[in-house]
């Protein structure tokens, strides 16, 4: 399976993707508003010698899509240098099979960057490793500070409903507090791939 112009053009634009979402559009658009692009990052994307094509695999139920697709959406909108086409993962398994996470997981979002001749510049999957690492540490800290949450490795159903609600609130707060870092890491990694396009 190769990606060519015909296949690429079958994908949804960012706005068309949002229009067909059956859930989480409000969260996605809220995240879009929260993306804070630095002048340097924006300048780097605007300075791309030509528009870069970005194929996306996504689904509207996925938390990492709701968190990270808006970062790409804002980069495309604010720079005018990214041509984004979105494919639904579960209807495009041939593309998904080509970009499995660690060769086995259907993790999304997947962002694949192409030049004008559909030579792949690089691809990006799910979320930055640095974000996973920071959030894992912060999660561990939450459990250490709240012995009532038990072991971080224990099944969650062993907690009472009230304790689960408190834990979920702590995890949500932690994610909110790390959003700025996470978005900056996504931009840094996408910038590194996009700027591989030849002048």
């Amino acid at each position, binding site marked *: 399976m190769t990606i060519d112009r015909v296949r690429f053009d079958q994908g949804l634009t960012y706005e068309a993707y949002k229009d067909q979402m059956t859930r989480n559009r409000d969260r996605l658009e809220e995240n879009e508003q929260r993306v804070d692009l630095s002048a340097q990052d924006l300048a780097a994307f605007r300075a791309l010698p030509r528009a870069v094509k970005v194929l996306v695999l996504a*689904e509207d*139920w*996925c*938390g990492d899509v*709701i968190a990270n697709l808006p970062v790409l959406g804002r980069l495309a909108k604010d720079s005018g240098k990214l041509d984004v086409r979105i494919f639904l993962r579960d209807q495009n398994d041939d593309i998904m099979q080509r970009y499995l996470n660690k060769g086995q997981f259907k993790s999304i979002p997947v962002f694949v960057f192409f030049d004008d001749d559909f030579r792949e510049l690089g691809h990006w999957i799910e979320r930055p490793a640095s974000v996973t690492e920071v959030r894992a540490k912060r999660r561990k800290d939450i459990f250490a500070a709240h012995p009532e949450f038990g072991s971080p490795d224990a*099944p*969650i*159903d*062993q907690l009472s409903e009230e304790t*689960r609600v408190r834990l*979920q609130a702590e*995890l949500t707060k932690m994610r909110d507090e790390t959003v700025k870092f996470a978005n900056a890491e996504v931009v840094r990694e996408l910038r590194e791939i996009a700027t591989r396009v030849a002048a």
Partner: protein
Amino acid sequence: MTAIAHKVKITYCAECGYEAQTLELAKTLMLEFGARLSCIELIPWEGGTFDVSLDGDLLHSMTREGGFPKPAAITDAVRARLSA
């Protein structure tokens, strides 16, 4: 003879779209065991979770086993507990 209440809990990642697998397993358990289970509890969670426990014992964990359980494996384990 004292009746024992047996309870199944299914904890699923609500951010991952695992509702279909959750409902399929819950339906399988309902149809197979009816009122012999005292409760089937569905717990929406996060982080890629899909755990199934019976009376506090973990029968399946997506983190531990990888992937979703085969409903037959869960019903076999529940049947064994009910007839113990």
